[in-house]
């Protein structure tokens, strides 16, 4: 079993574990939004879980690194923190911060990260850019809030994992990317109203059962 040194703490983990998972399992928190242990190929899209590894020139996302024996890792250097904070502020700049009206208030991953990084939820440095409309009600049972969503893709992953195929997808591109549930027939085949794995996995409350809101 590989032994590694993270922030001067020695940890021992199973071979083949990702560095992020190894840290999380050993009580070392690294901010992350898009990672799930069940993903074979982590998407590394949220760009939050940067760490510094001795011998590597630049900070690297810990979800894409497999642990090696004698790895020396730092999770809180200046350059790592700077990336954490910038990525987080960028995400907040497109997030409609309205915690007290949000059903995941106090359970939200963004609140947790804000506290951890000591960054205020209201962005000071960047202008806010929100999408129109604020809510997508196309899905028969779910409402989707694009201005809460961080596009981590966990909902798509978990739906596919459970049902073989996902009724959710990324749609459009670039800044306009959203989660979409296009195609009514497929949705009805899965009985979404009874499943809600996607709602449960969402780290930021971007998906919610319609009836839960009433």
């Amino acid at each position, binding site marked *: 079993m590989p032994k590694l040194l993270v922030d001067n703490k020695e940890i021992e983990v199973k071979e083949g574990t990702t560095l992020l998972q190894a840290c999380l399992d050993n009580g070392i928190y690294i901010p992350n939004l898009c990672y799930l242990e069940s993903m074979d190929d982590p998407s590394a899209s949220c760009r939050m879980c940067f760490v510094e590894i001795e011998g590597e020139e630049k900070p690297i996302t810990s979800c894409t690194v497999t642990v090696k024996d004698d790895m020396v890792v730092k999770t809180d250097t200046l350059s790592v923190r700077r990336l954490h904070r910038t990525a987080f502020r960028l995400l907040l700049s497109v997030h409609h911060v309205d915690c007290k009206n949000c059903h995941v208030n106090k359970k939200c991953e963004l609140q947790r990260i804000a506290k951890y990084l000591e960054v205020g939820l209201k962005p000071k440095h960047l202008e806010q850019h929100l999408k129109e409309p604020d809510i997508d009600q196309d899905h028969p049972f779910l409402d989707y809030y694009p201005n809460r969503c961080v596009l981590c893709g966990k909902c798509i992953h978990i739906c596919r994992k459970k049902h073989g195929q996902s009724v959710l997808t990324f749609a459009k591109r670039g800044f306009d*990317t959203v989660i979409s549930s296009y195609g009514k027939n497929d949705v009805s085949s899965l009985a979404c109203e009874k499943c809600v794995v996607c709602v449960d996995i969402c780290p930021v409350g971007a998906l919610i059962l319609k009836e839960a809101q009433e």
Partner: protein
Amino acid sequence: MSPADNEKLDQVFSAIREEAEKRRKAFREAPVPKIHIGMATCGIASGALETKKAFEETLAERNIEALIHPVGCIGHCYAEPVVIIDHPDSGFPPIFYHEVTAGKAKMLVKLFLEEGDPRFEHILGATVENDLIPSVMEFSRFNQEKRVVMEKCGYIDPEDIYDYIAEGGYSMLVKVLQLTPDKIIKEVRNSGLRGRGGAGFPTGKKWELAMHAEGQIKIVICNADEGDPGAYMDRTILESNPHQVLEGMAICAYAVGANKAVVYIRAEYPLAVKIVTKAIQQAKELGLLGKGILSSTFDLEIDVFRGSGAFVCGEETALIRSIEGYRGMPRHRPPYPVEKGLWGHPTVINNVKTLASVPPILENGATWFRGIGTENSPGTAIFSVVGNVVHAGLVEIPMGVTLRTLIFDICGGILNKKKFRAVQIGGPSGGCLPADLLDTPIDFDSLTEAGAMMGSGGMVVMDEDTCMVDVARYFLDFTQKESCGKCTFCRIGTHHLLRILERLTKGEGQDKDLEQLESLSEDIKTGSLCGLGKTAPNPALTSLKYFRDEYEAHVKEKRCPALMCRSLIAYYFDLDLCARGCDACATCCPVEAVFTTSNRKKGVDQELCVKCGECMVACPPEYDAVRKVSPSNLVPVVERAPEKK
């Protein structure tokens, strides 16, 4: 393969080669004039189809026999449509004609083909040295080029495989089929060839990795998803000499042990798709592709895959996703495609120019190739030099030539005697270099050091009327639209960069904007997932580095020094110069912003003006009365515009 097999291989191919030579001989020795017309996309866009039709019709009308030979592009876009007329009976050598419109074509048939007068005023030059007409080789646009990849472009018919074979084409494939893969790879390695897609990874090394990669099935992909705005080298090569690329692919496939290959071509290149598809078909018919190539045991199927319009698909992992039928979003590397690529199989992805370099390298040897260019960047570079430059087009030069030589000597300098401002290299991933870096040699490392990058070879020359802030804004607008949206830094970060730059060009910038532009750019560079995001801030960073004063003028004075940012400029008429009664500007104004003053001169209604500059173009040069100023409040108010009803 055994010696007997080799002999058979040679036999099969020499039959094909003989046929090709027979055809070429028949064409060359036909006792009639030959008219070679450049028919690639830029030629067609300039009217080559009409030119060809005019030749055909006039020849028929006047009952003159001549052979029309459609060829690809020779790269001299400024002179399109380009025609070479070989009229031996006239006593003249083959002649290059430039800008041959349909009218000129008719005239040339009558005066040159019929009456023997070559019409010197339309001649670019003779194709060979002679005593009658200056040869094109006397111009630096021709003689400073070194054609390796594009040697045959513009001289052969891309839709006729025999044309290529007669020029020695496919003989390198025949040669390598008799060698062991490691010999081929060694030769490519020794040549020092680096990937021409932009990053400059050693090609031989990539092939070697793929050869050793584990897997029964291996794949070769030719990346022709040329997306940089302002770059069209790959398209021209595919449209002008597709077989050289196919031959390069076949050699690569044989070397790494692949039996399947894909040419990934951008959707915006329909002609290239057509020509490559046809080329594959022709090669298959002759047994140069497909099952048991030239009776050997080597099989190779090449398919064409059309991209669907996503710049990010030029990134290799995104390209793979898109062939697999998914959203073209890049994934984290490693694993690299040479280990795990298309459908999970080891995959070599090479750029068009890289693959097209392979047959000449094998033909002339690694040492020859190393003799061209520089120590670390051997060979040639192909640039599409466009923008405010006199002789725009494709130029193939040895690596190491300086930017100054390329722009001022080879390409004739800046249009309309304007001053040079900057040269943008490497497209949205590259940067703008100023005049004092013009002596930078063109090679992978020097350009990167200067803050630009080789990129795939787009070069846009900008004159003094180009605003560097606006150029940065333009590129960020591009990358922002083309970002796949997967990762945070690129998706949201480039959006903010663009917004800041937009504010600057509108005169709404603040002091802290420049600082934020810099720091955010740095973070996007380190934080982004793929090459698109990592390089997206380069246009902003380099222009900020080299043209900071321009940025500051936009912020502090609300002034655009190049008089380009439309929110910061205003047009007016110099009434001392404006001619009474002249209406040239008023008739061309698309928004009726030009009004007649009480003394029958002109004024601009600033409320209506959209600042398109048409009046400036329309104003007759003898008056030259239209002026631009920045900031816009400097515009003198002579008379108010009449109230519109």
